[in-house]
């Protein structure tokens, strides 16, 4: 039993080490979503480590606690895979930043993260771990804190990595669609008047033409 316990302890500590490395990684857009998700997984690992420590005070339940720790470690490992493709090497800042602005403009307050996947799939997935954390025996303080820090359900936006090369094309199409949409919704853009004038100034100075052509919203 002590060999199994050592093996489980080793597995959990390696997983914890890998999570620390991932938390230190850079995520595009510097948005907090991936790190909040990683904190939840760290909380699960700490809970599993807590089960192993509980064996000291409760040796009669050693087998059950050991199995619980192993299963929870596997569970944490499975949930870690949900963030695969979210680091800066997979999805660039130039994709995530506009997405974030878009989400903020839509007043979506859920914790969110973005990832690329090598599949022809655009996806908006919802993730909810509240019930899971609530039902576990003796959840760690870190898990409860991480659950409390997120706005649930979490959202995960997946974009196909194959489409990255086509993004300028999407941007051109979206720009043209924006003209049609703007004509229909007639948004109030008066608060952007100073920026608009600044933009006109920069364009005219670059093109070396007069500002007589300027217009207002």
């Amino acid at each position: 039993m002590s060999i199994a316990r050592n093996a489980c302890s080793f597995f959990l500590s390696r997983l914890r080490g890998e999570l620390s490395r991932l938390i230190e990684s850079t995520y595009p857009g510097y948005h907090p979503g991936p790190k909040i998700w990683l904190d939840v997984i760290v909380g699960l690992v700490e809970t599993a480590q807590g089960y192993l420590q509980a064996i000291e005070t409760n040796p009669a339940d050693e087998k059950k606690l050991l199995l619980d720790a192993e299963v929870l470690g596997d569970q944490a490992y499975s949930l870690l895979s949900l963030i695969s493709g979210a680091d800066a090497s997979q999805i660039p800042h130039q994709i995530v930043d506009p997405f974030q602005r878009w989400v903020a403009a839509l007043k979506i307050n859920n914790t969110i993260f973005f990832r690329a996947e090598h599949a022809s799939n655009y996806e908006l997935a919802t993730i909810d771990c509240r019930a899971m954390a609530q039902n576990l025996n003796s959840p760690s303080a870190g898990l409860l804190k991480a659950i409390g820090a997120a706005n649930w359900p979490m959202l995960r936006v997946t974009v196909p990595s194959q489409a990255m090369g086509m993004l300028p094309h999407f941007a051109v199409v979206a720009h043209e669609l924006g003209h049609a949409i703007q004509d229909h919704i007639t948004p109030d853009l008066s608060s952007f008047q100073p920026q608009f004038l600044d933009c006109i100034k920069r364009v005219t100075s670059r093109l070396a033409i007069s500002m007589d052509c300027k217009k207002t919203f």
Partner: protein
Amino acid sequence: MISELPPAADLSLQHVIENSLAIIEREPFAEERRRQVLTSLTEILDQASKGSQVVQSNMLAFGAEEQPAFERFAMLFHYLQPVAADVPALLERAKANLEELRDHHGQSDQERAETLHVLRLLLQAVLTDRCLKPLVSPREYVFS
């Protein structure tokens, strides 16, 4: 919800069943925790009941959206079907018994025995399912 793991891989499901069994067997539990455990299990059984409705009504589109409900019912049906004639009715009765226990702290001996029977089968199903799961590939550790 993609975080819904297969029932056998979800330790929280095992814990909620074990804790419910302990409550029904009159082990001491803090009132708040007792209520939370019974509410969680009732919700799980409710999901399984929804899953049974999916199967009975052939609502495939609904099934795609409610995968956890369908999976929960599929697992319960798989393990309860050999020992129970009408699994959906059994789940409904277990749910009603747990709600009664949660809200009024009381159960007749028959209700208690029935609920214990269903929960023990359910726990056995989770543990058996876990044992039958194929072993994961060996993990590779790189020492630096």
